[in-house]
């Protein structure tokens, strides 16, 4: 089992009711699988914050809305395998960090 640190901010915190926790997850999961794992744990209200969805220039998109070790998973400079990156013991995930209101 791997121990993963999770931090929850604002709108996600209102779902989890706590600002963070250490989760034990099966070894060998990649980021995508971990996001499925935690979405199942907290349900659809949490899951809708895990991926950003919409359209850009008329094209639909779905992309993770999380930070891993203070970096976006979309940065291939840091994560060449993207969501297929293996989750390691001690990794830190942030959920709900970016806010949208004005």
């Amino acid at each position, binding site marked *: 089992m791997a121990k993963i640190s999770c931090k929850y*901010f604002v*709108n996600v915190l209102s779902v989890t009711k706590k600002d963070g926790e250490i989760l034990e997850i099966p070894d060998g999961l990649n980021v995508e699988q971990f996001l499925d794992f935690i979405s199942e744990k907290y349900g659809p209200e949490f899951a809708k914050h895990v991926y950003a969805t*919409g359209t850009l220039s008329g094209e639909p998109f779905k992309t993770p*809305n999380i930070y891993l070790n203070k970096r976006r998973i979309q*940065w291939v400079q840091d994560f060449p395998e993207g969501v297929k990156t293996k989750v390691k013991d001690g990794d830190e995930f942030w959920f709900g960090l970016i*806010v949208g209101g*004005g």
Partner: protein
Amino acid sequence: MKLSQQEKERYCRQMLMPGWGHEAQVRLKQSRVFIAGAGGLGSPVSIYLAVAGIGDLRICDCGDLELSNLNRQILHDDSRIGWNKALSAKATLERMNPDITVAALQEKITHESVAGLIGSVDLILDCLDNFPTRHIINEYAVNNGIPVIHAGVYGMQGQITFIKAPETPCLWCISAGTPAAVFPIVGATAGVIGCLEALEAIKYLSGVGTNLMNRLLIWDGEKIEFMELPQKKIVDCPVCGHLVSTG
């Protein structure tokens, strides 16, 4: 362009700032900015830009004022409930500083309207409450070389960064967005982040100071903490990936 005697007196305290003086104040007077949103963020942003002497403000909001806006939208008051917010903003700002010009734009920002609304400006202030509209503005700004100050608030938390692609990541590189919702907000949070946004704009337009580039500043008002996250471009970003960095 010259400053009138009234303008010299109105702005004399900020003109005492090192490196500011007459020249920087004239630069502010010559500046044209687009403020997207006349709500929680748009209120402190537009007020501080107006009183600092930004010469030409274009403030855009298609919404009408509601009573539930008034815990944070300090441009407006009870007597204007039902008014279009851009019109209300214009009335407030021109009263606060009669030496500037304010255009009230009441149209919704869409792919079709964005060019006509923003046009040619020196800077865009993102004071919006949703990411779909932010991404429309981001695309327009990237394709026209206009810097954007992005900010967002929620509850007692907020964020801000200065975007000038290709020297910095564009908004898409920073966030694809969050779900739209009626969100909790304490007015003072919008005040904190809005004042930072206004200061970033004033620094950029005056040429005094440095801007918050390649860094996302996050404010947690509940814990009284600022946190910074370095920002990077997404390789092959669908919005700014075609630009070549000169930085």
